[in-house]
């Protein structure tokens, strides 16, 4: 442990912007949208004050922002952008181009609900709508993780085995706007962790084409190669994390709390902190928590290890997948279990849509339901909308 004296109070948004400044990016293009606005506001201040030597390109839409980022990335620049909700949805078609052209762009997504009805509050609908765009998807529990994982995201994105864009997700408001102690590294320590590496780029001397037209004779191969690269990003993650100077802040695929639990709660982002608080303080020794930090590539193997000895699982999704058998995270968990021939009872919980933050009481209610539905001797899949119908205030 290091002393609290080395900590600074930062919101998730401020932690993201500070990490990006220390990563010494060359190019930022973004369009403001709640709840990520503070990230690009801070970065524009860093650029205008000269603290960060980068091009800041304000644009007329998120579609243009990510397009400008692709151009700069192909020119060899270290690139960052940030968005939320409708902004991410507007980027959607270009997200596939960024990953298809293997641009190591880092993007912060302060997760927010999608309209309609219009809502500015937190949930994971935005990024889950783009989960097949071929990006590495990281989820943060708190501002400290936002800081640490944003820095590591650059090294992962630019790793020659990966060369893929990375989205660092932070829950809108509950993480993006919550001020907490964040332990930060010295500027030069971050710079030496993130050396500039040669990569294929647009050059006069050695002309190359990116984003070419690919007929049925080649397109399929491109896409499979891209998928392999995403798998490799998962493989090199450990090496990327191991080199990170603050050993406490190293990016992991998942973290587990309480190895003794018989029922595992699996979730993404800030809610993991609330669940951990309940398990610790309410004496819920029969439960474990698996906080997934990596959603794509999905860490099936590590998850199965973490579920070893568990009798049932609760999967918390902060998004729905209308018409699908299960929402996104539950679907990935079920597929991972199926592939391993493991048939555990599963409670799929949809929670927190449009900013209905789970209270401690709601988490306790969920755990009670879990004992009934996925406890010893139970089978099959059951479903629950946590906090649904109880939101009037």
């Amino acid at each position, binding site marked *: 442990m290091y002393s609290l004296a080395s900590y600074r*109070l930062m919101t998730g948004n401020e932690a993201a912007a500070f990490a990006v400044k220390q990563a010494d990016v060359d190019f930022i293009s973004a369009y403001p949208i709640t709840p990520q606005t503070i990230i690009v506001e801070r970065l524009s201040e860093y650029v205008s004050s000269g603290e960060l030597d980068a091009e800041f390109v304000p644009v007329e839409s998120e579609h243009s922002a990510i397009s400008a980022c692709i151009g700069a990335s192909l020119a060899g620049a270290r690139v960052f952008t940030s968005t939320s909700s409708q902004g991410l949805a507007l980027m959607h078609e270009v997200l596939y181009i960024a990953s298809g052209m293997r641009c190591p762009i880092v993007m912060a997504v302060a997760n927010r609900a999608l309209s309609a009805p219009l809502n500015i509050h937190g949930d994971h609908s935005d990024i889950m709508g783009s989960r097949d765009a071929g990006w590495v998807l990281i989820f943060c529990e708190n501002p400290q993780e936002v800081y640490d994982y944003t820095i590591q995201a650059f090294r992962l994105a630019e790793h020659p085995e990966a060369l893929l864009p990375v989205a660092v997700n932070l829950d809108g408001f509950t993480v993006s*706007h919550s*001020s907490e102690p964040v332990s930060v590294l010295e500027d030069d320590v971050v710079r030496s962790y993130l050396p500039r590496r040669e990569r294929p780029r647009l050059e006069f001397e050695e002309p190359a084409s990116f984003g070419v037209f690919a007929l049925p004779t080649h397109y399929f191969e491109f896409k499979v190669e891209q998928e392999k690269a995403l798998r490799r990003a998962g493989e090199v993650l450990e090496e990327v994390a191991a080199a990170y100077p603050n050993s406490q802040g190293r990016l992991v695929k998942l973290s587990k709390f309480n190895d003794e639990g018989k029922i595992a709660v699996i979730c993404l982002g800030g*809610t993991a902190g*609330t669940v*951990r*608080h309940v398990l610790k303080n309410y004496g819920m020794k029969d439960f474990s928590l698996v906080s997934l930090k990596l959603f794509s590539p999905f860490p099936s193997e590590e998850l199965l290890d973490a579920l070893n000895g568990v009798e049932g699982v609760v999967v918390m999704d902060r998004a729905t997948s209308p018409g699908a058998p299960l929402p996104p995270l539950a679907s990935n968990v079920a597929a991972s279990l199926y592939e391993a021939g493991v048939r555990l009872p599963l409670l799929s919980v949809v929670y927190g849509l449009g900013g209905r*933050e*789970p209270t*401690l009481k709601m988490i306790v209610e969920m755990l009670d339901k879990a004992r009934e539905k996925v406890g010893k001797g139970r089978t099959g899949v059951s479903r629950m909308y946590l906090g649904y119908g109880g939101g009037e205030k």
Partner: protein
Amino acid sequence: MFLEILFLGRGGQGVVTAGRIVAEAALRAGLFSQSFPEFGPERSGAPVRSYVRISDEPISMRAPMESFDVAVVFEERLLDSAIVESVRSGGTVVLAAESARELPRGDVKLFVVGARRIIEELKKPRSLNLAMVGALCSVINVIPLKHVEDIVGRRFGEENREVVRRAAQLVVSVEQTA
């Protein structure tokens, strides 16, 4: 030690800033802290809330705060029955008021501070939040006032140190008979 604190004032009075100052001062005092605003749109003049958690252990929970150990209320009219009810038994209300008043609950302590008079006398009309932070720190007594003064002095000007100090001196406990 674990404290959950509500700041309640109006848009424009620095309610969110007050929470952040306290969280930062707690951090300087070697405590863990978390501060967050009421999420969503804020309107000038409308009631605004912010929240602070202080603990001697890391804070992992991010649940909304529904009841409080301390409610810091910037204006008498904002202290309605719902706010009084949301304070935990044995908890505290710190109220900006010129005179004592009766709370409908005997299990809640009341402290008042003439915050408006302090900022008028010191000619710091926009420093109501700083006065309330000073009063709060004096009441909860877990953060050395010096940390608050240092943060305030650096960020809002040295003369605001006196706002914090005077509010901390002048905040008084009001005996409840209920």
